[in-house]
């Protein structure tokens, strides 16, 4: 649905329809700002990126041939604008994750080796995120190294496809998939640690996963 709305906005914008400019800016400006805010880490940078991106969209708008590609077009411009704002504190140092660092740790429990995984079953689905969880997720995303953050923002937050994300970031589809998996694992690990800490606090301490029956 979102995609339909977006390509409609783009078509109306190109056609110069009344009100199209305001609708386009109202829709995309907060989107670009939010992406840039998570990407750059600074409000003032994100405000500037939003303005620079929209300006660039209009300046090169006569080249937009396919309105249905508007989202990836806009995010490609926004990504480049974010790179120009690159600040050492948030973009460096480059860190590569290895898969092994996300394997749940094991511990001895009597004669059993168990995995340290929180009880995720209590986590509600399809409901608005509770503020504590939301803040934790936001912090986890913002603290990811840039190469992982850029992929998870486009794939899981903006819900662009692997191919679109690869084009925006100038990497191969396989690189997108590899980075996405590590980014998700890194976030999962942070959420898992939080859930486990809460279990301990609630007195319902669980020693990992029960062994397979």
């Amino acid at each position: 649905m979102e995609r339909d709305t977006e390509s409609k906005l783009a078509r109306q914008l190109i056609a110069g329809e009344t009100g199209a400019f305001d609708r386009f800016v109202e829709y995309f400006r907060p989107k670009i700002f939010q992406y840039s805010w998570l990407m750059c880490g600074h409000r003032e940078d994100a405000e500037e990126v939003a303005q620079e991106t929209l300006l660039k969209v209009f300046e090169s708008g006569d080249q937009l041939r396919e309105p249905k590609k508007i989202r990836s077009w806009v995010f490609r411009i926004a990504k480049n604008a974010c790179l120009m704002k690159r600040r050492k504190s948030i973009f460096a140092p480059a860190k590569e994750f290895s898969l092994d660092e996300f394997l749940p740790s094991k511990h001895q429990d009597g004669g059993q080796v168990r995995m340290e995984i929180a009880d995720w079953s209590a986590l509600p689905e399809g409901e608005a995120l509770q503020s504590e969880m939301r803040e934790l997720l936001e912090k986890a995303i913002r603290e990811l190294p840039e190469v992982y953050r850029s992929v998870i923002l486009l794939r899981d937050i903006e819900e662009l496809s692997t191919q679109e994300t690869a084009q925006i970031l100038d990497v191969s589809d396989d690189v997108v998939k590899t980075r996405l998996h590590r980014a998700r694992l890194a976030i999962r690990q942070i959420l898992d640690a939080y859930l486990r800490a809460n279990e301990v606090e609630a007195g319902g301490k669980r020693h990992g996963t029960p062994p397979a029956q």
Partner: protein
Amino acid sequence: MEPHQHNEKCKEVFALLSDYLDLDLPPEACQEIEAHIAGCAPCIEFAESLRKTVGLCRQYQPTELPAPLGQEAKAQLLEAYGKMLAARTNRPG
């Protein structure tokens, strides 16, 4: 009962979980993962926690909003938009 180790199969599944959740694997690889997971409680739990992580990311909406668009910034955008429309209108063909 065998204690659960990170055996090679678990590690293979672990490496492919995102592709699996994104339905991005060939059918035979999917079936292989499903066959393993069906008999491996820790892998089920891990896959479920990763699936929920992705779900949380998809639900997530940033709360930060940009400051209202200032008059000067809007004028700058409108000017560029005007030029864009003119360029499209004047384009031959």
